[in-house]
């Protein structure tokens, strides 16, 4: 299986699809990469030549922020919000939704698994 930028090993799907397994590459960028490198988007990823891979790698390296670098960038943005003590930073610190969603119910993605409180109304009925 082909490797692009170190660890990423997209499988034997079409190139446009498998490129999206790289963190930071979505439908749009994947399409754009195929056009700019002149690779047939419908070609299976396993059929990519060394030359194709080199082209993709150099393009990604030079012009786009993906993978580790992108993850770091996102983390830095969050760290900045935390440091300046603004509302969004406080929400990040508390692990609650940041963009004004309701927290009376739902918000489980941010809050994690439910922590049932003993003696609270309704707990008995749940069992």
């Amino acid at each position, binding site marked *: 299986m082909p490797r692009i930028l170190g660890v990423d090993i997209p499988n034997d799907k079409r190139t446009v699809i498998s490129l999206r397994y790289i963190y930071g590459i979505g439908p749009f960028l994947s399409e754009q990469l195929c056009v700019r490198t002149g690779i047939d988007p419908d070609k299976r990823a396993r059929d990519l030549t060394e030359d194709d891979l080199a082209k993709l790698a150099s393009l990604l390296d030079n012009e786009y922020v993906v993978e580790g670098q992108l993850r770091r960038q996102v983390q830095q943005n969050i760290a900045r919000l935390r440091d*300046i003590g*603004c*509302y969004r930073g*406080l929400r990040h610190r508390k692990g609650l939704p940041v963009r004004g969603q309701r927290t009376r119910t739902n918000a489980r993605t941010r809050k994690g698994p439910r922590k049932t*409180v003993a003696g*609270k109304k309704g707990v008995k009925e749940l069992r």
Partner: protein
Amino acid sequence: MGRSLKKPPYVVERLLEKVYRADSSGSREPIKTWARASTIVPEFVGKNFAVHNGRSFLKLYVTEDMVGHKFGEFAPTRTFKGHGGKASKAPKK
């Protein structure tokens, strides 16, 4: 939802005036403000403000990182003391 880019940032002009006046008079006193919706512009960096949260004024020293945010983001309006237990029942008014 972001603000349309064809508009300039929303800055309460009175606040800018106040900052300039404080600058020329050399006053280091925090500038009291209710203008929570005002964007923080580079002119405000390194100044002390006191932003109203509906009850009191919270001190805020503006740093470079805060530019582009609004004053209100730095003065939370809600108090949450936690759910249940003795600890939270005691301070209830």
